[in-house]
């Protein structure tokens, strides 16, 4: 039952995010647009490029969707509303989202096209930049909760959310999450206007529809992870727990969208340099500060 509810919540959030995305880009609020656009994709011809690596080409969009849903499976909407409350939840989400890279390499290599391939390999470089900034802030979150269980992490924030307790970790995680979701300004693998769509370039029709759905699901999963790790998860007054989870998740997702709209695309070399020379020392500092707080403050 939890599985169906979480899946529906995920789908609903994706729809809302798509509506907001359409609103910010076209200036018109059209609630039916994502559905119509999806149907239009289903009706179009789904072209297979010449001499593709067919297995990769077909698998990539589906794999991206599966890993986004798997990541969401360990994130609780309410104390008992979680698909799998794993003992290693905070590690599992990293494991699931590591396969975003695999899916993008497949999508890059599969169609046998130059732009797609460059996009795919670019994401590998992007991973080397952001990976530590996902893992190290989560380490500090787990240190405070003294657990990797996501529901325990939310309970540990009762009274004081992690965004206040470890603001540095939140900032680093938020930026790294945007890089993982390859949203602007970190949309190097797709890079519209420069790579002609990159990993998206050779996909059309139903395959493109799945790819777009997967990308939006990934954003929601990462926004939900930010909510669980830093914004107190289901905690909040008056409204039921699941409502707070959804409101916070959507707020984070929309803020990611807006941050991307007003920032120019970052260069791969700059991203790598800033992540390693500034981001990782700050993440280490965050771990030290949280460690001291955990030991000193009861």
């Amino acid at each position, binding site marked *: 039952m939890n599985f169906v509810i979480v899946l529906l919540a995920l789908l609903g959030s994706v729809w809302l995010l798509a509506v907001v995305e359409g609103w910010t880009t076209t200036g018109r609020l059209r609630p039916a647009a994502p559905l119509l656009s999806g149907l239009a994709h289903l009706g179009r011809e789904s072209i297979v490029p010449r*001499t593709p*690596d067919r*297995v*990769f080409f077909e698998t990539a969009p589906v794999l991206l969707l599966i890993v986004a849903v798997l990541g969401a499976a360990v994130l609780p909407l309410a104390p008992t509303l979680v698909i799998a409350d*794993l*003992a*290693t939840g905070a*590690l*599992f989400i*990293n*494991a699931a989202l*590591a*396969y975003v*890279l*695999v899916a993008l*390499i*497949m999508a890059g*290599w599969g169609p*046998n096209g130059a732009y797609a391939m460059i996009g795919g*390999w670019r994401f*590998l470089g992007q*991973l080397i930049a952001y*990976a530590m900034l996902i893992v190290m802030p989560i380490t500090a979150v787990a240190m405070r909760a003294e*657990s*990797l*269980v996501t529901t325990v992490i939310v309970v540990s924030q009762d009274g004081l959310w992690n965004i206040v307790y470890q603001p540095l970790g939140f900032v680093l995680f938020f930026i790294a999450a945007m890089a993982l979701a390859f949203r602007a300004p970190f949309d190097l693998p797709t890079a519209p206007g420069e790579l002609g769509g990159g990993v998206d370039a050779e996909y059309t029709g139903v395959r493109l529809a799945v790819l777009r759905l997967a990308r939006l699901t990934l954003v929601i999963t990462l926004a939900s992870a930010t909510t669980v790790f830093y914004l107190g998860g289901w905690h909040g007054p008056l409204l039921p727990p699941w409502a707070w989870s959804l409101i916070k998740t959507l707020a984070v997702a929309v803020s990611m969208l807006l941050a991307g709209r007003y920032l120019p695309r970052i260069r791969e070399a700059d991203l790598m340099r800033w992540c390693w020379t500034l981001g990782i020392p700050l993440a280490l500092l965050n771990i030290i500060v949280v460690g001291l707080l955990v030991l000193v403050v009861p």
Partner: protein
Amino acid sequence: MYAQAFFVAVFGLAAIGFGVVVFRTSSMVRSALALLFSQTAVGCMFLAMQTEFLGVLQIMMMATEMSIMAIFMVMFMMDPGGMGGMDMTHQKRFSIGAGVVAAGVAIVVAFWADWGPVTAEAPDAAMQTRALGMELLGRSMLIFETAGITILTAMIAATAVAIPVQTTANSADKEDTE
């Protein structure tokens, strides 16, 4: 018990199947990702054997490692897509022989070794994670820290070696070209 054995067998066969694909394909990226999915199947075997932390860790680590290996294979092989019809294998007889012997030795060891008594009940996943943490920060700390520092030193040394030496002559060349 039977369900557990079933899933261990299924993932084990998947691991072997993907392992075979590694050598059957000529595409370097296919080969690297087949190895990745073989290792992922091993991670799933860990999960089926109730060692959750090890399983998740295996599944996580391999995704990045094998992808990085894939780009190096693409960079260094002359026919990375396997579409040029190049034969990139060598010493076939020797490697088949070595493979058969190694598999035989592994099977003999698996059947003849004394694996000790079977644990009646595995501790729950949270307890396992805690016990692993205590082990890593206790008795085994020195070993892991030494290994970590050694690998870090090797990485720094390799990077330092890879950076071209900037002499006065070639820095002048560089300025000219710029």
